[in-house]
């Protein structure tokens, strides 16, 4: 139903470390691979091998450049998928009841059998986390791999979202953000995790860890040069060149 649950027993979500992400897009590929063959309609591509390929993805990696007031600019790779918001506007706008948020774990899902493909939920999401599939005509979004995380038919280490499982840099963490004692909650507290676009009042569950401060060379830290006069071969070369 499109009413949001008053409370959720768990707040399952992702913590994404912008310090660690190397922008390899492995999570994008593994997300597509898993989700095109599991929950709901496949994630279709149009003109996949042609000049203008377009396709449905549930996770995308942007790359930005941040320039501080002083000092060099820095590249930040920025993966983005559904943030499983507590006040998910995408859910309450849905006219058919297809979009819903689960009270047991807070995951926001689309029941494709009810979706009429109006696209209003995608308009309501500030983060671009929902894409209407061009072939199936139904709304697709991150399911937090609901068909992996509780799946007893796969090895235990695989019972995390596909993006988390595949990230070679360890930039993605999965857990219960409603439990202050969970690893992800502690990580968010330690690293000052933030909400995206808080002014949109969606209260996202997923958190982003800003890049750590880079080391800076301060005066006096560098060693003094040991040798001023060239010796050996370089001394000979020096002399020889000067003689020319």
């Amino acid at each position, binding site marked *: 139903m499109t009413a949001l649950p008053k409370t959720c027993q768990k707040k399952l979500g992702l913590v994404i470390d912008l310090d660690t992400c190397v922008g390899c897009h492995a999570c994008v590929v593994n997300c597509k691979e898993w989700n095109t063959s599991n929950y709901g309609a496949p994630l279709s591509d149009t003109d996949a091998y042609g000049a203008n390929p377009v396709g449905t993805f549930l996770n995308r990696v942007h*790359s930005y450049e941040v320039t501080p007031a002083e000092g060099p600019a820095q590249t930040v790779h920025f993966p983005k998928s559904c943030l499983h918001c507590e006040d998910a506007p995408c859910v309450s706008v849905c006219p058919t*009841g297809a979009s819903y948020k689960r009270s047991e774990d807070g995951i926001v899902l689309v029941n494709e059998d009810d979706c009429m493909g109006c696209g209003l939920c995608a308009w309501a999401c500030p983060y671009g986390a929902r894409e209407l599939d061009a072939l199936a005509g139904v709304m697709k979004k991150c399911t937090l791999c609901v068909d992996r995380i509780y799946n007893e038919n796969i090895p235990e280490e695989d019972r995390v979202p596909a993006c988390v499982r595949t990230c070679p840099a360890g930039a993605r963490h999965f857990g219960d953000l409603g439990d202050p004692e969970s690893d992800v909650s502690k990580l968010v507290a330690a690293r000052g995790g933030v909400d995206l676009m808080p002014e949109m009042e969606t209260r996202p569950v997923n958190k982003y860890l800003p890049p750590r401060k880079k080391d800076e060379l301060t005066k006096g830290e560098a060693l003094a040069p040991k040798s001023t006069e060239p010796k050996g071969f370089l001394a000979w070369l020096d002399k020889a060149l000067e003689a020319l």
Partner: protein
Amino acid sequence: MYPAPSVIYFTTLTGLGFGLLAWLGFGYPDVIGKTAFFLYLLGYGFAVGGLFASTYHLANPKNARKAFSQWRTSWLSREAVLSVAALVIVAPHAFAQVFLGGSVPALGWLGAVACIGAVFTTSMIYAQLKTVPSWATPATPLLFLGYAAAGGALFSGQVVMAAILLVFVGIAQLGSWQLGGELFAEAGASLETATGLQGLGSVRQLEPPHSGTNYLLKEMVFQVGRKHAEKLRWIGGGLAFILPVVLLLLLPPHFLTLAIAAGSHVAGVLAIRWLFFAEAKHVVSLYYGK
């Protein structure tokens, strides 16, 4: 936002249709027989045509009937319910006026209120979206209701009422164009807040996440219209308000005058609705550096 023809026709035609039906439901003008038949044909034609156009916006229309289920929470669902309710409630009143030479005022009034509700809920589909700051303002429902009232008055042949309303709605539209430009900045979203990197410095897009286009870019990062906005505002405003008012005030209230004024009004409203969508900027465009 992408100005899809389906939603432009949907909002324009249902606004006109329900506006006209509301006036008729309230008994302005109190018509019977052939005139009533002609006016109800227009009212029902516009409203049903607009609702029909809206189904072209659905990628999976076979589930459209489910849109009646979530009226407790969803404005779109409320719009669906009230639209059908309005059409049904006005019907006996219309039938009595057209075929029996009488009327059912109670149902007429109730139906008129439902018509207003249908227009209001339509406007709230857009006004509820914080993600599109230029829509998320009380001006949106006020203007939608204003357009419906003015257009309905025009089509029902109430010359003086139509002229007054057109002037008021025209001024309101002008005001909303003047102030609307600030709303995005006032909402406070920027690429810095969108990425949570505000503490580190200013952010710009280095590389987009995909080389081609996608649903988000096509649907919500439409920018073509902004270039011609100024010109289109003049054309839309001229056709929707200025020409009809001039015609109504200067020419005798002949059927032909009304028909030309009404036709011009509809063309103008379509252009203005196109702008309503094309000019609206969705916050997701920030992620794409737009």
